[in-house]
């Protein structure tokens, strides 16, 4: 159903009010929460790395160590990094938690992430041709894209992308800017030069590789192979987890896509409308939400990317009520159900045809 401009502006006003109620009260509670998260992350990272070396006592310690390091990387990337880089905690004026200075434990350079994710993806969410996060230029996830032969085996491509997710994310901007391959687009205005992009990509990537696969194995001495294997595994777990969470937020069965014409000169209300329809939530216990960095509330995150994420759960019922009032589909379900539809979508569009985006 289509909303009138009048309805859209009322929608915007209501959603703005929900945000203002939270943002006006930010203070000690949020600061304590994110600092506790940071402390948990540091403790699990350090103890995880130590326990891995102690694997010679019993391999169970190694297993426990790998799990802790994976947890640390997941917390760093999701509940801390992703949210801090959105500027959710900038108001704290803390150099360790400010989006301008934050850097995370992942191959992707934070500056590149802020350009492609914060700006491109969050501004042009699910607009075909503008939001390159829709399929990452690798997967055909809707009928808006012409079918190609390579789409036949795109489920394998998807598994590979998930396995190497941090490198996919890190290379994303360079792929879009055609730094190494592809025809340079004449109309693209580069905010960052190709040489700076390369420098950030190789610099950050090399530091991450060196840390996990050279430095820590080296100082582990005779346990080097255990540490190396443990680090590979921890990175892999993190990659699979982050990829799965993100796919469940945008590529479930009922997510809508939009054309560029639909969004030309759109109002704030339409932007909100598009964010609700372009995202999907999934449910779970509290600890589960924290592990997803509250991206389990992808809809709320897309409406309010700069609201401290711990509040998404509390505003979700209000958002859902507003969506219902305006007859906008609010896409939520259990994690397994949502993930099943993601897999279904990837497989469906491996083949030609499929439902077309309504104009």
């Amino acid at each position, binding site marked *: 159903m289509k909303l009138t401009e009048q309805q859209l502006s009322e929608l915007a006003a209501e959603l703005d009010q929900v945000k203002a109620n939270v*943002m006006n009260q*930010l*203070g*000690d*509670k*949020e*600061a*304590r929460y994110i*600092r506790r998260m*940071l*402390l948990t*992350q*540091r*403790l699990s990272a350090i103890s995880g790395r130590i326990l891995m070396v102690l694997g010679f006592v019993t391999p169970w310690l190694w297993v426990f160590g790998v799990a802790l390091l994976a947890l640390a990387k997941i917390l760093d990337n999701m509940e801390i990094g992703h949210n801090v880089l959105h*500027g959710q905690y*900038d*108001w*704290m*004026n*803390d*150099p*360790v938690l*400010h989006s*301008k*200075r934050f*850097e*995370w*434990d992942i191959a992707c350079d934070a*500056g590149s992430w*802020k*350009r492609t994710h*914060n*700006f*491109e993806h969050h*501004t042009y969410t699910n607009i075909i041709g503008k939001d390159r996060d829709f399929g990452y230029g690798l997967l055909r996830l809707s009928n808006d894209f012409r079918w190609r032969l390579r789409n036949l085996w795109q489920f394998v491509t998807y598994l590979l992308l998930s396995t190497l997710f941090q490198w996919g994310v890190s290379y994303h901007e360079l792929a879009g800017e055609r730094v190494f391959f592809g025809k340079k687009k004449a109309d693209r205005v580069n*905010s960052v030069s190709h040489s700076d992009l390369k420098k950030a990509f190789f610099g950050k990537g090399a*530091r991450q590789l*060196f*840390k996990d696969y050279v*430095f820590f194995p080296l100082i582990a001495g005779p346990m080097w192979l255990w540490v190396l294997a443990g680090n590979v595994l921890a990175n892999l777990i993190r990659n699979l987890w982050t990829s799965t969470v993100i796919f469940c937020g945008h590529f479930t069965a009922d997510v809508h896509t939009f054309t560029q014409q639909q969004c030309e000169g759109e109002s704030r209300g339409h932007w909100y409308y598009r964010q609700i329809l372009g995202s999907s939530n999934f449910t779970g216990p509290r600890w589960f939400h924290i592990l997803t960095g509250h991206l389990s509330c992808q809809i709320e995150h897309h409406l309010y990317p700069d609201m401290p994420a711990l509040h998404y759960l509390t505003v979700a019922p209000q958002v859902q009520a507003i969506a219902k009032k305006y007859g906008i589909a609010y896409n939520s379900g259990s994690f397994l159900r949502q993930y099943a539809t993601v897999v279904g979508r990837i497989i469906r569009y491996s083949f030609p045809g499929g439902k077309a985006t309504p104009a």
Partner: protein
Amino acid sequence: MNETISLWGQRLYRQFSLMLANQPKLSYYLQPLLRWNNAELHPDYYSARIVDSGWETEQILSVWLEPEPSWTGFTPGQHLLVTLLHQGRYISRSFSISSSSGLFAQQKQIRISCRIQPQGQFTKALAADIAKLTHLSISAATGDFVLEPQTDGAPQQSIVMVAAGSGITPLWSMLSSLRCWTSPVVLFYCVKNAAQAAFLTELRLLAAKQPLFELQLIETASTGRLNLVQQLKENTKISLTHALYYLCGPAAMSRQYKDDLIQQGVPSDAVHAERFGLELAATQGPVKQALLIEQGKVTTIEAAAGVPLLQAAEKQGLSPRFGCRIGVCYQCVCQKKSGQVLNLRTGQISGDGPEQIQLCISAAHSDLQIEL
């Protein structure tokens, strides 16, 4: 040679820290562990234990601090940036140290004395939180508002000090630190009334004990504003052109006295002034538009004439990094891409090209593009 080695060492450490912890320094990574029970400490500054606090007057609160051992000390007259965590947020303000170098030498303590302003965000928070705070974060002491060393052999110069209100703090630090008195010192202490004068008992005691020191209390509520030049000519034996001047008070006052003195033939390098507060330069003119670019995302803000860009950006819901908000600490420096800004401290208008600006003391002079 040593410099080159230390420079390389610093670079190597930075790279190592980036590799290991994704932070420019390891202390940032360790901060959550180090301060787990002391969350109020700011990672960029020294910690200072609050030893005691008390009211000098109804409005002026003194806080005695014991800085951590690595703190580098101070010269009387200097100021430092004090940072505190208030409602989850770091806020900072700069204060002059009001205690003597003797107190620091003997007990490793310093004192800051703050006028609590009802509209002041920092001072209000400090007064409200002081009872439950255990530590404050402080920067190294900086500033060149210090007594000129009197060169041996040269004729001793008289010293004229003018303090307005809480402007007494650096001057009292200088006076209480003076060990050997060689020349006359006169202090004009301007306050609304004597009840609002901090350190008055101590100053009177000093005047009684030290024949070279003269205290002139100016109660502006009853006698009106101090006419410095006239007062010096009529009530002191000081030769105007052969004295050193130390002025501390609101920016407008210091500038006025400095102009008056220069007119009397006083060389301008004999007049030292510590200004506090942000004196707003021209505040007239139409509202400009500033485009603030944050990693590609553009926010347009209304930048009214005379309003610091930092304040304008915050009003729009943005949160750029900031510190002292009076142009001292350089934490809010951003790259201006185009347009002209007015420096609210100096009144200077910038060029049109790309350059670094301090958001807290820059106002729009034309439409702007700024990289946050």
